[in-house]
């Protein structure tokens, strides 16, 4: 369907930065009528941001807009809201469902576009009192479902539906819009069974035949090859490669995605595994965690004493669920044994009593007392859990805070971790992100844990702070013999820091590799069980 002339959609030199952090650079993308392109890339490569720009998301405007031009049928457009994008014929199926749970499929398909009949009251007051035309709603929903080519029950209520049907309801809703020309599907097959995914691919082919252009985002590369005309690979905010789907293969795409192949692969990673014969200190058996968006299923994992174990994987695959579940922040089940002792789940206090410490990925929410001083932030858990920094009077009847000891330890950590602050009495919320992260680490260090969970320690902090944080972790591990479990989305940083890296995919451990393993193998594991 590559007819010459102006393309349906053209994106020219799209740039976007978030507060000085360049996330998209010179993106050029064209899309013709009836064309299906696959957009792939690691998390954080910029796919979602690019689609948000195209869809006129509020969040883009609120963060200072974007650079470059978007042309539809050769006409320059600028969407000030998703509604304008919809009006111009763009439809988007988001990763999170946007459905009313108590409504039937047909009501959701035609939500706020219901066919209506005027009546006496609506003539007097307003057209919002029009009665809904149930027959036409039925018809409209049926037509849309037919267009999609995958059968779903239009009368079924969303909350009773299997998750795949919810996805199809969303797609049918987009198809029911007459003006639809471009459909963006953001990981639509993530929640589908194999059969459903096939049906969807078939449906995408049908849409393309009818002239609808599709942008298909997925981590399942096989699907891209099966249905797309072209593959566009993004990495670190650039389009690194564009190729006809028939000319490439999964391995090649993986390499483009993970990239950095030119650099010698093992230069910065730890090479030897020092703890191969150390005893197993933490045993995780059949762990499940109900952390929304990061569900963990049936995880078995052994951690050796004194090592740094990395947990990596794509976002939403469950890597964050593992520490959060063990530490009792989300509902979990299964067995966790530490040093020969069973650790009860769903009980944060027990974990802390067993000398676990956790540096949460949610710094501001879970990690810090934002309105309190650094001293308080660093000393509080140790004081609360281990009765440190307390002076006892009358044989322990009255406990008094030992302000001096608190100040000393805080100053010690400020020096050690190079925390930039005006004094140890400064409030935590006044620090920059990187320094807040260091305070979180200091807080965990002050507990003198035997096992330290660190979740996304470098998220949202700059390069200099990153190196410091990782160094501090390594030193803490080496000098105190503390076992560290580090969860991170950045493979490169795991490879620099950890002894072994477990990759989580589809809520399960897909495999454990030494840090020196090639990037390609890590990439393959990450995508292995994506669902």
């Amino acid at each position, binding site marked *: 369907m590559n007819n010459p002339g102006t393309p349906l959609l053209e994106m020219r030199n799209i740039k976007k930065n978030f507060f000085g952090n360049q996330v998209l650079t010179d993106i050029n993308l064209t899309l013709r009528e009836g064309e299906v392109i696959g957009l792939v890339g690691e998390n954080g490569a910029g796919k979602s941001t690019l689609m948000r720009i195209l869809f006129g998301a509020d969040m883009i405007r609120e963060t200072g807009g974007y650079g470059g031009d978007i042309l539809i049928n050769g006409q320059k457009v600028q969407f000030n809201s*998703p*509604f304008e994008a919809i009006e111009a014929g763009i439809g988007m199926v988001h990763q999170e469902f*946007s*459905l*009313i*749970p*108590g*409504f039937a499929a047909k*009501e959701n398909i035609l*939500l*706020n*576009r*219901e066919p*209506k009949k005027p009546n006496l*009251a*609506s003539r007097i007051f307003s*057209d*919002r*009192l*029009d*009665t*809904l035309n149930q027959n036409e709603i039925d018809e409209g929903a049926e037509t849309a479902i037919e267009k999609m080519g995958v059968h779903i029950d239009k009368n079924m209520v969303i909350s009773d539906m299997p998750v795949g049907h919810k996805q199809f309801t969303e797609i049918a809703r987009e198809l029911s819009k007459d003006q639809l020309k471009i459909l963006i599907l953001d990981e639509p097959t993530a929640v589908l069974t194999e059969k459903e995914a096939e049906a969807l691919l078939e449906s995408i082919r049908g849409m393309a035949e009818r002239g609808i252009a599709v942008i298909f985002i997925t981590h399942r590369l096989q699907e891209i090859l099966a249905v797309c005309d072209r593959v566009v690979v993004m990495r670190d905010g650039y389009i690194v490669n564009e190729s006809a789907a028939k000319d490439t293969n999964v391995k090649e795409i993986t390499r483009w995605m993970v990239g950095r192949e030119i650099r010698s692969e093992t230069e910065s990673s730890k090479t030897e595994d020092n703890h191969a014969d150390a005893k197993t200190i933490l045993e995780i058996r*059949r762990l*499940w965690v*109900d952390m929304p968006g990061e*569900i963990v*299923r*049936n995880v078995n994992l052994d951690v050796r004493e004194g090592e740094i174990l990395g947990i990596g994987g794509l976002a939403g695959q469950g890597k964050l669920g593992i520490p959060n579940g063990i530490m009792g922040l989300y*509902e*979990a*089940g299964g067995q966790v044994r530490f040093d020969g002792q069973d650790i009860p789940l769903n009980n944060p206090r027990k974990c802390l009593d067993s000398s676990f410490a956790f540096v949460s990925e949610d710094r501001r929410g879970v990690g810090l007392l934002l309105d309190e001083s650094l001293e308080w932030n660093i000393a509080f858990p140790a004081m609360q859990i281990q009765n440190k920094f307390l002076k006892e009077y009358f044989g322990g009847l009255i406990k008094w805070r030992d302000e001096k000891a608190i100040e000393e330890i805080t100053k010690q950590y400020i020096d050690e971790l190079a925390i930039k602050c005006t004094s140890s009495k400064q409030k935590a919320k006044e620090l920059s992100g990187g320094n807040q992260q260091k305070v979180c680490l200091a807080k965990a260090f002050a507990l003198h844990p035997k096992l330290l969970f660190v979740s996304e320690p470098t998220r949202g902090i700059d390069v200099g702070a990153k190196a410091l944080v990782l160094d501090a972790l390594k030193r803490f591990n080496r000098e105190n013999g503390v076992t560290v479990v580090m969860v991170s989305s950045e493979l490169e940083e795991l490879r620099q820091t950890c002894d072994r890296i477990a990759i989580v995919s589809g809520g399960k451990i897909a495999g454990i590799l030494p840090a020196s393993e090639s990037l390609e193998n890590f990439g393959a594991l990450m995508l292995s069980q994506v669902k």
Partner: protein
Amino acid sequence: MTEKKGLGALIRQNSVSLMFVVICIICIPISGLSPSYLINEIVTRMGRNAFLILSLLIPIMAGMGLNFGMTLGAMAGEIGLILVSDWQIVGIPGMVLAMIISVPISVLFGLFCGKILNMAKGREMITSYIISYFMNGAYQLVVLYLMGSIIPIKHSSIKLPRGYGVRNTVSLLSMRQKLDNLVAIRFWGIKIPVVTFIIIFLMCLVIVWFRKTKLGQDMRAVGQDMAVARDSGINVERTRIISIVISTVLAGIGMIIYLQNMGNIATYSSHSQIGMFCIAALLVGGASVEKASIGNVFLGIALFHTMFIVAPKAGAVITGDSMIGEYFRVFVSYAVITIALIMYETNKRRAKSAVGAELEKAQLEEESR
């Protein structure tokens, strides 16, 4: 398995209603009241309260919970009645005029309440409850100080002797049960206020019809998921305000129907507990914070008021003190509302932990394969 679970869930969801059925079954024989007296009382109270309680349904549909702010509508209705009785307009025309006066006041109150509730999303119930206290102060200012001094009040039977302010009780003798008696059929000693019931029936039809309108559909969408509704282009804030305005206006009209049956206004207290009793009755009828039907309204009135009628008698028979009835009335109302609120939260939590249980089950299944 599922059937057993279904039955358990059914009992749990209707535990409040079932509790009242049990109380009524125990108390009716003890009270020694004749069936015809009992039925007559229930019919009267049905006519008196149904319209008021129906006014609660629309905010529940819009996901705003139980509208304690209906008290505001009740105040508007009272203001209308006070003015009309001062103007000496009697009977049905007086009632109609009072309703006409109450509507714009209710709309203003509703807009005000709706705007505030939009600022307190997710905490509508406690906010509307406190607003009703706050507005009670404004109402007292109007009735106690402005009426007679700025708003002309002529008749000394209404005005306080000091020259301004309204008396504690305003007699509605000229309107007393005029609507109920317009066409009243007596049936084995049971008086049926036909016109009142027709009005209530029409109101039910309007609510059924309303659910099928675009606005009703929007309200249901907003009630279930504000973010999704907003993404689809529904004006969430406006829809929520409209639902509160409609509720307040209906509460104002309902209050006038209620007071014509009572025959007098307790100027400073009639409205203060009406919200609570209406909400309690609705909950007793099996409604919850997020779901209520017309059937809940009538079942609720029947059960709640049967208890009111028989409990004092039964209390007097058992303890020799009839005051126990009034005590019971207030105590039970608060208890019912508390139980409903707790159940709302536990059901939410139960739904949440169900996800975890499902995960565990899926895992076990996988292992056994």
